[in-house]
């Protein structure tokens, strides 16, 4: 029993380290984006950090995974499994409408510095540095950081259940995720602290990069309305990675504010 607990903690810690140090892409990949049923159906989803869309690499910690139901209730998965390569959830989708799955850890302050020629990192705000930063540290920079890992699953008829909360960078669908179709233009909007934001760097990648020489990344930047538009060439599952960084509003705590959104979605056959 002790061994099992030890293994679990070690796994969790290494995951924490990975997401901070290497900044892998992350995603929630559901078994189905669209479902039809009169009685409800089981859904499963994988949570993983990997730079190879959508081949799994390292399990994401999913303690904060929540499901926003069409009725506005915040559910937890009915069961979870944490492997080494991926975490998995089980969830019964009972009602018609759109469910939003999120795995968003709270925003945190991350400080980078150099010590004896080596890059180091520390989970601390600027206010904590006098206490926590080792002597001799140089090139110190602190970032307030927040990442959203999310996806949408629709049972029968879609509903606009996008769960906007106003924290740093958010993706708001203009084209409903359930209405993204090959060969048709789709639109998303980005807001930062609830306001439309220009200059968000976006990458959209079709699954299957392991079997292509060219990863075929579509790069976009949000316009003055915070919007991006794109036309998926082929049906399939896509990962969207959005990043926005700016000078921090509260310079007492951080130099920069940085926020990311990882959205997986499917483009359907037309």
């Amino acid at each position, binding site marked *: 029993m002790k061994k099992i607990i030890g293994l679990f903690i070690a796994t969790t810690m290494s995951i924490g380290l990975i997401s901070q140090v290497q900044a892998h892409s992350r995603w929630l990949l559901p078994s189905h984006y*669209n*479902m*039809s*049923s*009169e009685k409800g*159906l089981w859904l499963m989803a994988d949570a993983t950090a990997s730079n190879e869309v959508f081949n799994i690499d390292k399990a994401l910690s999913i303690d904060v995974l929540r499901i926003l139901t069409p009725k506005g209730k915040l559910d937890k998965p009915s069961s979870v499994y944490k492997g080494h390569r991926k975490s998995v959830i089980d969830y019964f989708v009972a009602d018609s409408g759109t469910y939003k799955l999120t795995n968003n850890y709270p925003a945190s302050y991350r400080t980078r510095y150099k010590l004896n020629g080596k890059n180091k990192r520390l989970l601390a705000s600027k206010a904590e540095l006098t206490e926590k930063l080792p002597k001799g540290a140089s090139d110190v920079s602190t970032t307030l950081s927040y990442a959203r890992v999310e996806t949408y699953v*629709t049972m*029968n*008829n*879609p509903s606009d259940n996008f769960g906007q909360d106003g924290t740093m960078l958010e993706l708001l669908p203009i084209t409903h995720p*359930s*209405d993204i*179709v090959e060969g048709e233009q789709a639109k998303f909007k980005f807001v930062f602290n609830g306001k439309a934001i220009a200059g968000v760097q976006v990458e959209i990648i079709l699954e299957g990069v392991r079997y292509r020489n060219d990863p075929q990344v579509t790069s976009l930047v949000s316009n003055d309305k915070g919007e991006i538009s794109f036309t998926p060439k082929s049906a399939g599952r896509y990962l969207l990675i959005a990043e926005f960084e700016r000078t921090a509003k509260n310079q007492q705590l951080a130099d920069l504010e940085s926020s990311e959104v990882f959205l997986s979605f499917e483009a*359907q*056959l*037309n």
Partner: protein
Amino acid sequence: MKINNVALYFLLFFTVFCSSTIAAENSATYSDTSASKIKINLVLAEQSGEYHSPYVAAWLENDKNQAVRNLVLWRTKAKWLKDIRRWWRKIGRKDQQLVDGITSATRGVGSYPLTFKALDDNGNILPQGNYTLFIEVVREKGGRAIVKQAITLSNSPVHHTIKATPETGEIHITFTP
């Protein structure tokens, strides 16, 4: 009170009776298209290997890509309705009643002559104009085909032929005003 009720029911019945008579007369004089027919000879192609009868949907979209008339739905379990991709997105997921109303059992390989009145989903005469007929055929553990044909509903009869696909044989469509 009782008499009032009887009188009320009579009045109601009379009104409904009269208005339905008027509606019938109107549709006869309004337009010749009340007798218009769309005929589809739908052919499900022969397959080799494991075979499950396809889920089939056929419908009309107007020139704004809006579904206006659901013609055919051959299906079994609701769980697989989403696999009739375009039909599910345009019609199926939005209207449970409509789905239930037109559902019938799946059919195997064969040729199926089908005849429809040129009406919309509410039973109203389809206005003259340009439409697209879609036929979507999806087999479990098999292929999918979506074929479409632009069709103009006017005072002239039309005949179209849709080329065969791996899932469908040659399909003939006629419109007689």
